[in-house]
């Protein structure tokens, strides 16, 4: 793990969690990439794991700041923004806030909390809906 002292990290056996085959396939998507040797594949896979862990920890930190138990897309976005190198290549790839399902779900939840709809009302709504 990246948090431990570097010396310990090296002498422990290196167990890759991410399948290198899939990493290779993602690399191959770029037609400009010719050949990649096995040590490079190993390092990229391992660096990706570290990056993933780093994202997770930072996003969790943001969620904690906002006193939330669930890590959401917005927390990830803030975490990305705060680290310049990551922000440079990643910020534009993140889905726009307006499209965020997490936010839509939150809004729907708060709406339903305010107005519990009685069964009768639903029937009236159905009356105004178009029949397909």
């Amino acid at each position, binding site marked *: 793990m990246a948090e431990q002292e570097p010396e310990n990290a090296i002498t422990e056996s290196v167990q890759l969690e991410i399948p290198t085959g899939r990493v290779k396939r993602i690399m191959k998507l770029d037609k400009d990439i010719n050949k990649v040797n*096995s040590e490079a594949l190993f390092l990229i896979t391992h660096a990706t794991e570290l990056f*993933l862990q780093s994202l*997770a*920890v930072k996003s969790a930190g943001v969620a904690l700041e906002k006193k939330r138990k669930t*890590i959401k897309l917005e927390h990830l976005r803030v975490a990305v923004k705060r680290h310049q190198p990551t922000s440079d290549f990643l910020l534009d790839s993140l889905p726009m806030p307006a499209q965020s399902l997490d936010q839509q779900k939150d809004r729907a939840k708060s709406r339903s909390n305010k107005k519990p709809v009685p069964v009768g009302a639903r029937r009236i709504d159905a009356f105004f809906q178009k029949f397909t």
Partner: protein
Amino acid sequence: MVEEQDKLLPIANIGRIMKRILPRNAKISKEAKETVQECVSEFISFVTSEASDKCHKENRKTVNGDDICWALSTLGFDNFSDIMLRYLQKFREFERQKAEQNKASSSEERGEVTSNGFGLQPVASASLEFGILEKGGSSSAKQK
């Protein structure tokens, strides 16, 4: 839809890695997890592309471990770069020992290799069947 998934790492692995590093009661929304999934693919492409550009400029065909370390450092991931450089040294040491073991067949040397703390998964041998990989890194000096 199968094509799309090929561009991403399996979400099960992603979830497992995240769960392991986060506190036990931490929850991650499905959307956040899927977005992380896309982010790591971007990371792979981004770093590899940078390493590959360096190779093109230097008229080399094969991206090696030094190139990856260099790309990480150039792109601002210095701490990753440092860790990877050390892994790279160990990786090459392991490969060298393995090569020596194959040449000589004395049991003494075999014992030395097995007591090596760096128990690497057989990534190198498994990758020989794939088209884009070449076995063995160049013994070029560290490029910084």
